[in-house]
């Protein structure tokens, strides 16, 4: 007969750990964890230093002459230069992206996810889009230069040699198109299959199911991806250089009228790139002030997208 001896001493987490490790500290493990934490910390610290640098150096300009800085035009003097022409160009680039890249990109994603059969053409389109997303932005700039600035000059700006905001908008729209397609396709893929089958079950056509069930369900995901793509378009500078955004002297370029779309233009990233090439001492504070304006625009878009995604992830979970 088994005798019941004294109950086993209650094992605490600490005592169990001691028994397993023999009381020795896991030094390598600690060092490894520390190294991992450090690498993440350094990455975030760099972000902190960058933001601090922008605020520290740029704030004097923003504090002293914010209104004048936002409404003034590019000058050869740092202390009178303003961003109005750049803001106008960046605004139109955003409009082109929203009007062209979003509908075409989302439509392509719908086709690939909802209609396409698993054939050779579909595989080719899919591979093609993935490769397009990896093409460097400067190459898109070359396309903009050849197609929009030169070949289509009569449409994009006969007076400005094609170096207009139309050319820039079209170039950046095709640059972000693959990103829009990929993110929208991911959002559509995440829609539960049962939703579609229920729709078909009551006799809806494919388009009706897409329009009334798939798209509303995928909307937040699609929106997140498109907003990120928009932020990317607003921050790109390399294609603008190729398309011929004005870097120094530019008259006008502040009008928001549709008729001015074919005129010469510039945009915020181009202004920053130009001022970055000027003597640092004199131009540093205005350049950082311009960076602050661009960052506010781009980061608001990014933060909105991230918040939107987190909120909907939580609701679905």
């Amino acid at each position, binding site marked *: 007969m088994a005798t019941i001896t004294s109950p086993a001493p209650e094992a605490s987490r600490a005592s169990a750990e001691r028994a397993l490790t023999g009381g020795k500290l896991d030094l390598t*493990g600690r060092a490894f964890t520390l190294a991992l934490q450090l690498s993440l910390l350094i990455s975030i610290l760099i972000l902190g230093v960058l933001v601090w640098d922008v605020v520290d150096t740029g704030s004097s300009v923003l504090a002293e002459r914010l209104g004048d800085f936002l409404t003034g035009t590019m000058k050869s003097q740092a202390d009178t230069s303003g961003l109005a022409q750049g803001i106008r160009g960046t605004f139109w680039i955003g409009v082109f992206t929203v009007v062209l890249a979003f509908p075409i990109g989302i439509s392509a994603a719908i086709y690939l996810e909802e209609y396409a059969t698993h054939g050779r053409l579909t595989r080719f389109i899919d591979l093609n889009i993935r490769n397009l997303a990896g093409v460097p932005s400067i190459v898109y700039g070359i396309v903009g230069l050849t197609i929009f600035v030169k070949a289509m000059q009569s449409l994009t700006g006969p007076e400005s040699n094609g170096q207009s905001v139309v050319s820039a908008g079209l170039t950046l729209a095709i640059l972000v198109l693959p990103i829009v397609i990929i993110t929208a396709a991911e959002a559509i893929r995440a829609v539960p299959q049962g939703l579609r089958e229920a729709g078909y079950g009551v006799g809806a056509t494919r388009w009706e199911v897409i329009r009334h069930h798939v798209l509303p369900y995928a909307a937040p995901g699609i929106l997140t991806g498109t907003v990120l793509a928009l932020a990317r378009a607003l921050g790109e500078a390399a294609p603008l250089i190729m398309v011929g955004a004005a870097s120094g002297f530019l008259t006008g370029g502040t009008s928001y009228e549709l008729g001015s779309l074919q005129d010469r233009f510039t945009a915020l990233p181009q202004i920053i790139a130009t001022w970055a090439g000027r003597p640092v001492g004199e131009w540093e504070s205005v350049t950082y002030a311009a960076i602050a304006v661009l960052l506010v625009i781009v980061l608001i878009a990014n933060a909105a997208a991230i918040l939107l995604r987190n909120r909907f992830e939580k609701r679905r979970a």
Partner: protein
Amino acid sequence: MTDLSASPAPLSLGDLSGDPRRLRTEAVMRALLFGAALTSILISALIVGSLAKEAWTFASQVEWATLWTDGWFPRRGLYDVKTIFVGSALVAGVAMLTAVPLGLGAAIYLSEYARPGVRKVLKPALEILAGIPSVVLGYFALTWLAPEVVARLREDASGASLAAAGFGVGILTIPLIASVSEDAMRAVPHALREASAGLGARKITTTLRVVLPAAVSGLVAAVIIAVSRAIGETMVVFIAGGGTGGSLFTLDPLDKGTTMTAAIASQASGTDQVVGEALTFQSLFFVAAVLFLITLGLNMIASRVVRSVRQAY
């Protein structure tokens, strides 16, 4: 009394096929969506089309001796390709030395160690870093990284240099490496970690011997995509590399220099039209075509790595 013999008209095939208006909408929408999908092929055709012609003109007309001189000065007719290739390689190398340890470390921490609450705060911070435009990082590299970091490596290298640009590009690719490799590690099934822990492995052993090997295809792909991105990055090198207008051949990353991308951009900037020697304009297309092929090749390799090494769990 109702006439029972008057049965309803029998259903014809036409009745089953549905409302013609709805069917027409369906067909129209399908065609429109298909057209949208085809635009991606059109864009590829535009890229190849705009690069091919002028790149070929350059390749067939250039004097081969000018392709191997001691510097890249296209406006003077000196197209030393090794200057810009080595420049791109140096920048990508410095970038990867920065971004691979930091990005991978951050990814391992977020995927294996961080508590959910910590992760929820730190991951968006990395995503914000990913959203910073490259012009901004370029200027940051020139005004902060160059004097504060690069100048410590060698005293006389205080201004623009390939190393400063490389660090800048590295910072740009940290979030990319971190997010792709974190996805790869999170895709490793939890049972593998539990089995390892059950055998008495420490956390570090589980991470290094179980999770990382299982995720290796994703990690390799992350690095290849990052290299491709680093080679294709323009603005950081344009602003912080110090090679506007041309550059002498150099193997030292602490020197000023230029890359394929920055060489294209600096030729197009400053003047309204690309001017210089007869083939200056065409040289830009030639470099872009080579750049396109290199990044395309790297991206293809990355997706192949993912497919061939991926284990089905």
